[in-house]
């Protein structure tokens, strides 16, 4: 089974270019931070409530990226604000991203292709090998959003993540998204890490807007 972080990057993958949408973006790094925290929560390594994140178990998970994240938040007190844990991991966004891509390659889902643009600039693409896993993630999301079924915890996580990064438009058309919006909102808020992540994205967006001229 793929981790939430792996599923998030798959959803962000553009099949035509073999690249990832907005990967350098501040918000995507926040979403990746949220994804690894959610993975750690699903493995019962961390727990959260409306205010705090508690590290329950620092023992290795066996997943390199999750152990890296567990180690990174190990610098914080055992009980901390969820937003502080997200901030620590967000700052490691590029490292998280590279580790998750490496895992997707190890799983045989992506392959790495080096190339040159205009015969000068080195480029790197990650084409999908057969796209089965991406289709499976999209199908799971679509099935859930178009039904009244109670979601399972992993489904809540992937919907919260996809919603926060605007990736649901890779699953649905604009009109489908509009008609499923109430259901998306209902499911996305069921994850408390997802709620903290969304709050952080709003704050980061507001801070960025202030920095921009005429913002």
């Amino acid at each position, binding site marked *: 089974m793929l981790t939430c972080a792996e599923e998030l990057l798959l959803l962000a993958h553009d099949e035509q270019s073999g690249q990832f949408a907005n990967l350098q973006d501040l918000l995507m790094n926040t979403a990746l931070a949220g994804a690894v925290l959610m993975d750690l*929560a*699903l493995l*019962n390594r*961390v*727990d*959260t*409530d*409306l205010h705090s994140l*508690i590290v*329950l178990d620092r023992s290795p998970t066996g997943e390199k990226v999750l152990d890296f994240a567990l180690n990174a938040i190990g610098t914080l007190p055992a009980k901390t604000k969820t937003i502080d844990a997200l901030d620590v991991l967000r700052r490691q966004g590029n490292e998280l991203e590279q580790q998750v891509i490496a895992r997707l390659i190890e799983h045989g889902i992506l392959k790495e292709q080096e190339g040159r643009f205009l015969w000068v600039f080195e480029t790197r693409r990650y084409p999908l090998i057969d796209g089965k896993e991406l289709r499976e993630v999209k199908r799971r999301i679509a099935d859930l959003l178009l039904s009244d*079924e*109670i*979601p*399972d*915890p992993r489904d*809540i996580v992937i919907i919260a993540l996809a919603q926060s990064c605007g990736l649901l438009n890779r699953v649905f058309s604009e009109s489908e998204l509009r008609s499923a919006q109430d259901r998306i909102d*209902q*499911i996305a*808020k*069921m*994850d*408390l*890490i997802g*709620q903290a992540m969304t709050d952080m994205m709003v704050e980061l967006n507001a801070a960025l807007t202030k920095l921009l001229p005429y913002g």
Partner: protein
Amino acid sequence: MDITEQKADSATVLQFSGRLDGTNSAATDTKLADAVSRNPALVLDFAALDYISSAGLRVLLKAAKQAQTAKQKLLLAGLQPSVKQVFEISGFSTLFATFPNRDAALASLK
């Protein structure tokens, strides 16, 4: 956290007391899954439940899904204000029929 099981006329009641969080979620998950599989109607009495975390919510989510699949009834009763707040903010209040106390929950099943 303690869970005690009591039989009533119209349902089985599981009375929770203490905190439901990541330190006891695995054991609660097992206990709840077993109770849902044995009882067509189950009332979870939370009057003495002081605290619920994300891990606790996940346990309840799985139980709700199990009950929905088996077409069984799973009702919640006696949520304390702090637990109720978590349910409202997370939207979990839309997943369950909730009642002010166990008697009201049991009466709804008659």
